[in-house]
C-alpha cells in the first residue's frame, strides 16, 4: 500500500490493534448492558434469575508476536 514492506514493529502494532478491534466487536452494547444491569434468564429449573457476566481470567499469547 505504501510501496514498501512493514517493519516488524509495525506488524506488532497492527496485531495488537486488530486484537483490540475484535474485542470492541465482542463487547457490544448488549453485553455491556448485561455487564452493568445483568440479564434475566430462565434456567431449566424454571426460575428466573439475573445473570451478571464477569471476566475471571484472560489468558492469551501476545498477539504482538
Amino acid at each position, binding site marked *: *500500500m505504501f510501496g*514498501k514492506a512493514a517493519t516488524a514493529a509495525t*506488524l506488532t502494532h497492527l496485531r495488537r490493534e486488530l486484537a483490540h478491534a475484535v474485542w470492541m466487536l*465482542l463487547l457490544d452494547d448488549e453485553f455491556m448492558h448485561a455487564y452493568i444491569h445483568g440479564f434475566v434468564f430462565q434456567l*431449566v429449573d424454571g426460575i428466573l434469575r439475573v445473570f*451478571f*457476566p464477569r471476566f475471571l481470567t484472560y489468558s492469551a499469547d501476545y498477539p504482538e508476536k
Partner: protein
Amino acid sequence: MPPPPPIPIPDPEQIIEGIADISDDPADKTINTSNLYRTDPDGYGIVREYLHGRPSITPDKHYSLAEVSDSPYMATEDSSDFQATSRTFLSPLQTLYQSAASTAQTIFTPFRNPSIYHLMTWFYRPESNTKSITELNSLVKDVILAPDFKADDLVGFDAKKENKMMDAYREAPSESEGPSPFTFDDTWIKGSVEIPLPCDGVKQSEEEAPKFKVEVYYRRLTEVIKAALSEPAAENFHMFPFKEFWKPGPDELEEQMYWESYTGDRWNEEYTKIHADNQEGLHHNLEAVLIALKIWSDSTSLAQFGNAQMWPIYLFFGNQSKYSRAKPSSFSAHHIAYMPKVCLKFFQL
C-alpha cells in the same frame, strides 16, 4: 495428583440457618452477615458458608465419580435411573419430546418414527462422543429395547439425511409451535473491523491513516452465554460462591479451603457487590448470579501442512467445576471469535 475431591455435599434441606455474628458497627455494610448460611459439617468435617443465604442450586449433589473421571473403559455405576429422576436439563431433542406431549405433534417429531427418534437421541446425547460401556448399555436399553422400537422402521435409514432434516426443521419457527428448540441466536456472524495503517517513516494522524478492513467471524457474547446456560452441562454449574472451612481438630482453628474459583475470596467479594447492586436494580425481586467468563486464546495452526494460522478466542465458564471443565469430552470450550493473523503479504500489494 490428588484423589478426586470429596463431594458429599448436604442437600439444601439439610442446610441449616447459622447464627452469625452481627457486626456491631452499623457502617459495616459490605457483608450483611445476618443472611449467612453455614452448612453442617459433612463426613470430612468440612463446612460451607454462603454469604447471601441458602443457595437455590447446589449442583454438587449431581456429581458422581463417573462425572469427574474420564476413562471410557471403566465400568461405572449405571446412571440412567439417576438421570431419569434428577435431570432437569434436557438436550434439545429431549425438550422436543417433552413439549410434544402437550401439543398435537407426534412424540418423534421431526423424525419419521420412534425408532429413528430413539437412535438419533442416543447419538446426540451430550456424553456420547466416545463409545464406552455405558454408551453401549444405553444403545441397547434406550434404543433397541424401547417398547416402540421396530427394526422395520430403519429401512432406508441414512444418518446424513436425518441430520439434514434436523437442520432444516423449523428454521422459521411459527408462533403456534413456539420457538424451535434448536434455535439460539448464537450463530456465527461475519463482521469486519477497520484498523488504521501506519506507514514507517511517515508522520500522519491516526484519523488520516488509511484503514485496512479485516473480516472477523464472531458470535454474540451474551447469546453464547445464554446458549451455554441452556446446555445440560449447566446443570452442574455453581451459580453461587461459597467459602469452605475445615477444622483439623476440636481445639484447633478453622482453616479456609480453596479448591475452585467459586470458593475464592475474589468471587465472594464480587458476588457481594453484584448482590447489593441487584437489590437496588430493576430486578431486585430476582436472585443475582455471577457468570465467570474465562477467556483463552492461542494462535492455532489450521492444518498439518502449510502455515495457515488464526487466533480463536475461546470462552470457558468458571462456574463449571474444573474437574468437568478440564475433560475434553465435556465440550466446555465455547468458540466466540476467529481472528485472522495479520501477515506481511497485506503490505506487498
